[in-house]
């Protein structure tokens, strides 16, 4: 763990990561069961299917799914991104990119549901792509939480050889391991002071 102040939050963060995986897994199961998991299935779900006697989705039906997701997904993404960024698990630019990608995929997934229904089935592949991207980013956030908060090999190294641990400032003033350039500079300055 990079910051000892995070140690008390190990259990909460890992529990949150477990529930993120459950959410991603159940979303994938629902996408496969209800929307068929393919562009053709997505079109049939939103535009109706004569063979299955299903009607096109109504506006209240679309909103019933969209509104809770517009609140729930950003809250979950905000919480997980906040923890991962606070723990400095990623360089700032990469963390910003992953957050943008997650929020973008979530918004696109919700918006394209309306697009398929009212603009046409050509947008169905976008729905599949946006859902897939959101799933990948959720898995990435869960993995990052685990990487930050699981008792890692890095900690064992830190205990055995404090100088070799990632982020440790070595006797020659250099910072060990793959630490972001700005972070390396900051830690070296702290030691110099």
């Amino acid at each position, binding site marked *: 763990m990079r910051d000892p102040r995070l140690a008390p939050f190990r259990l909460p963060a890992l529990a949150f990561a477990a529930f993120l995986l459950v959410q991603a897994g159940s979303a994938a199961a629902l996408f496969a069961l*209800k929307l068929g998991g393919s562009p053709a299935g997505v079109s049939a779900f939103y535009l109706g299917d004569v063979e299955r006697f299903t009607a096109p989705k109504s506006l209240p039906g679309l909103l019933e799914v969209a509104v809770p997701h517009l609140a729930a997904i950003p809250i979950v993404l905000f919480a997980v991104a906040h923890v991962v960024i606070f723990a400095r698990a990623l360089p700032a630019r990469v963390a910003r990119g992953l957050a943008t990608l997650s929020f973008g995929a979530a918004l696109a997934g919700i918006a394209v549901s309306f697009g398929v229904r009212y603009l046409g089935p050509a947008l169905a592949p976008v729905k599949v792509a946006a859902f897939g991207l959101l799933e990948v980013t959720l898995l990435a956030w869960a993995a990052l939480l685990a990487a930050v908060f699981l008792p890692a090999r890095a900690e064992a190294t830190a205990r055995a050889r404090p100088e070799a641990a990632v982020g440790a400032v070595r006797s020659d003033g250099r910072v060990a391991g793959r630490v972001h350039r700005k972070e390396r500079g900051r830690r070296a300055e702290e030691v110099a002071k």
Partner: protein
Amino acid sequence: MRWLVQPAAGARARPPVALFLVFAGLALAGLAVQRLQAGGLSAAGVEAFYRGAEGGEPLSAAALWEEVHVGAFVYGFVLFMLSALAAVAPRLDGVRGALVLTALAATLADLFAPFAVSARPGLGALRVATSVLASAAMWALLAAVAVSQLRAWRDARA
């Protein structure tokens, strides 16, 4: 989390934390009422709800996953917040880990128990047990956090 790791900010955070605890209690109460609607505390009622009563249709796989999906958000977020608050409560040192781990295991078991009830007859009692255990574990965690917040508030005023 930033203010959670800065004990000095604890006093300023107390009002929103207290309000959050009220809403968390309401969410848990709402979940308990939903459980009562879905078969209640009787094994036969739970089986009838998931497997269909007297030749009725059993719940579809999509409906079961939908329950997991919604439950994972409610349980997951409330547990995350409560356990993060428990992590900075100094008086919970001896019991914090046990409270959080029990709540985590019980809620996960509660989310997936309906699949067992649907798959095999005679497992309605399992869902009753997981519901009671998950609810009790979450309420215990909430109560522990609330008492610890109350004591901190009293100490600050003294």
